């Protein structure tokens, strides 16, 4: 049997809640999938949607975006602003037919080490089931082939 697909997943998390939550998962030795690597931001409000696009372009199969629960933001309202942008960004992606299931948004507090662990595992499973994000990765190739075929046809 062929070995199972191991998705690459990038997690964009805020320093004060989710990053600390991930640390807690560590200190309490909670084991979880190796597929997710964290990039640390001061606040979810700092997370630029372009970074998500770049992550996909560079081969991410899935993305986790996570920060403080509403009203717990270290900067009082960064996560509220982030949430609004996500709402708009998601509806744009959806309108473009982009597979929004590849992005998991979540609130994970500094006390929710176990939530972080299960979030990582669930996301990994979900993305593994979906398979590699070839839809995006192969865009340029497909375009090339299509134009090529058209040229041949002419």
């Amino acid at each position: 049997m062929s070995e199972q697909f191991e998705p690459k997943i990038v997690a964009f998390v805020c320093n004060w809640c989710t990053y600390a939550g991930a640390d807690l998962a560590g200190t309490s030795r909670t084991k979880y999938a190796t597929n997710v690597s964290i990039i640390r931001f001061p606040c979810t409000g700092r997370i630029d949607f372009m970074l998500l696009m770049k992550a996909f372009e560079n081969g991410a199969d899935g993305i986790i975006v996570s920060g403080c629960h509403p009203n717990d933001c270290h900067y009082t309202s960064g996560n509220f602003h982030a949430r609004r942008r996500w709402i708009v960004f998601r509806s744009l992606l959806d309108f473009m037919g982009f597979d929004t299931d590849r992005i998991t948004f979540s609130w994970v507090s500094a006390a929710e080490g176990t939530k972080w662990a299960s979030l990582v595992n669930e996301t990994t499973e979900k993305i593994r089931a979906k398979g590699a994000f070839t839809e995006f990765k192969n865009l340029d190739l497909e375009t090339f082939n299509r134009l090529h075929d058209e040229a041949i046809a002419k």
Partner: protein
Amino acid sequence: MKQLQNKVAELFDNGTISLMIGFQNALNKQPVPCFITVASQVERLIYTPECKGNLAVYLHKIEVKQAKKVGIIGNVATLRSLIQLTSENQLGDIEKTVITVNAQNEVIIFANMDEVEAYVQANFPEYTDEDKKLLEQLNAMSRAERWQYWSEQFSVCVKCYACRAVCPMCYCPSCTVESNQPQWIKVSSETTGNLEWHTMRAMHLAGRCINCGECGRICPVGIPVHLLTAQMNKDIEAEFGAKTGFSCKSGYALNTFKPGDKEQFIK
């Protein structure tokens, strides 16, 4: 037509304006923008329903800014641009005289932005039937079909940035798409890069675009890019009840929030 020309001539004579941005007939009888600086040339001015172009975009040109006293004519979409730009502090240093021609073919010269607001709010435009149809079709498609549709559209984009050049809301002196430190978007026009460019453009215009549709009209390879922002505005209005180019005071949907904003998509 005569009425318009006389009124504009008047504006020149009493020194209200030193530059008039309007339309004239090109040789092919298509209306094209024209810039008039002396009363004697006003007979070049025309204004017909075909004059769809959004002249507000020229207000960012340094020559126009320098002219200071500027007259500008346009349809509701253009007026909405003026409102939106005012709310974004972009027209501070221009003494503008705003002119439009209403359905009854009367020339209206607005005394101030409040009047412009009132007029816009009274004649707030619907989406064109064509756009409505397209949006419906797209929304009716399955996700995969939409992805297919757009990736094919974007695959032919040549990154000429005409969509940006024609947009009155794209006034940044330097655009992120050209930034190379860091290099956000590939210079060459590959589909992924093109998709990123159009995503970014749509996000930057979401909640600011005033639906003039120029970007779609101008695209040399016929990508209906205006649908992206049109859809965004629809969603934003539905979600947050914010209208663009509606009032100089009404804020920007994406620099504010409500504690109760929906979040059922967040785990």
